[in-house]
């Protein structure tokens, strides 16, 4: 397999990246590439320009901000997994990131990339939503904050404009008690369904076109999950009920 043709750009500063993103048509930002490269290999994505931000220096910090954890665009999932700061301030994030694929994938994959990719079955968007976090989007026009409940618009769709990139994700400190539970066919696969609990808040993933907030007393209300070879819609609803019960049993 081979990605379709594209023009490759490797900016070394954020300003350069933003001005390229503003001037190029049909450009995609390449960070960890653990979702984008498979899409290219399968030719499900055919961007005309690929903007590789891996050579932008100093964009990989994981630090404490406003009582929560900020992860910059090149903060790898493995670094978040290993971070003592994350374990102390937002253990929910530390636990969730371990459910993302496998360590070898997490060595490259980024937290911000998972959020921008917005796969409805992935863990981190649901964690951001359950915690009420946000992302900072930057473009040549400036910066803006997009709250989690405004970010996810549909399957692989976000509120990001075509000239914007996520430069930072912010996760509030995780309250007690918290939990993230999911069911998948194989360890490291995308979840058939999953739940994130942050104290009284509940977010679900894998059961809609975006992660969704739900009420624990009637978690499946209004859900219309899709069915596929791995799980019927009814089975997904069943998983939501069981996992919600487990998450709130603790």
């Amino acid at each position: 397999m081979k990605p379709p043709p594209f023009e490759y750009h490797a900016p070394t500063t954020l300003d350069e990246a933003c001005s390229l993103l503003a001037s190029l048509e049909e450009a995609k930002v390449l960070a960890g590439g653990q979702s984008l490269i498979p899409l290219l290999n399968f030719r499900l994505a055919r961007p005309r320009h690929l903007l590789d931000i891996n050579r932008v220096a100093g964009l990989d910090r994981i630090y404490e901000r406003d009582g929560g954890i900020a992860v910059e665009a090149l903060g790898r999932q493995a670094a978040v997994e290993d971070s003592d700061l994350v374990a102390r301030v937002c253990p929910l994030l530390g636990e969730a990131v371990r459910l993302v694929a496998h360590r070898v994938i997490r060595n490259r994959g980024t937290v911000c990339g998972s959020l921008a990719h917005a796969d409805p079955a992935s863990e981190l968007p649901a964690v951001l939503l359950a915690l009420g976090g946000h992302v900072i989007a930057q473009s040549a026009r400036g910066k803006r904050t997009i709250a989690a409940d405004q970010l996810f618009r549909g399957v692989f769709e976000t509120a990001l404009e075509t000239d914007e990139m996520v430069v930072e994700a912010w996760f509030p400190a995780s309250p007690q008690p918290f939990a993230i539970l999911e069911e998948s066919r194989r360890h490291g696969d995308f979840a058939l369904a999953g739940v994130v609990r942050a104290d009284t808040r509940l977010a679900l993933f894998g059961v809609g076109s975006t992660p969704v907030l739900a009420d624990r007393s009637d978690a499946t209300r209004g859900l219309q999950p899709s069915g596929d070879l791995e799980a019927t819609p009814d089975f997904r609803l069943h998983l939501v009920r069981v996992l919600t019960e487990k998450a709130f049993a603790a």
Partner: protein
Amino acid sequence: MKVNEVEYPAPADARRLLSDHLRHDLGLTGTHVGCEHGVCGCCTVLLDGNPVRSCLMLAVQAEGHELTTVEGLARSGAPLHPVQQAFHETHGLQCGFCTPGFVMSVVGLLAQHPQPTAQQIEEGIAGNLCRCTGYASIRRAVTRAVELSK
């Protein structure tokens, strides 16, 4: 980029995957290519010491970095790397297609956890698929590699 401590010229084509670059351009066919979308783990190599999927990277992204492939673990004629020796001793392979990926993942695992728990071993090899062995002998290989690495 440096591969197994040898400096190579930059890849000519930006769309060349690192896995294909290693095999087709550099002739390092020890890195195997299975699924080409990051699921099977056969193409795992070390990038600056950390295991990564070479099918999920463009070769141009490895410019300025150091790569280790399975060929770099032990020179021809030299004793095997402890992880290779362990796979050999415990029959951690049958057809061998997945083996280079497993070996590189386990090298990465032992660098991260020199004394891995049973769960860390399971997690460490969970990203690699083997259709022959049923994994029991591969788990034994990891345990043996820990002993041989002492």
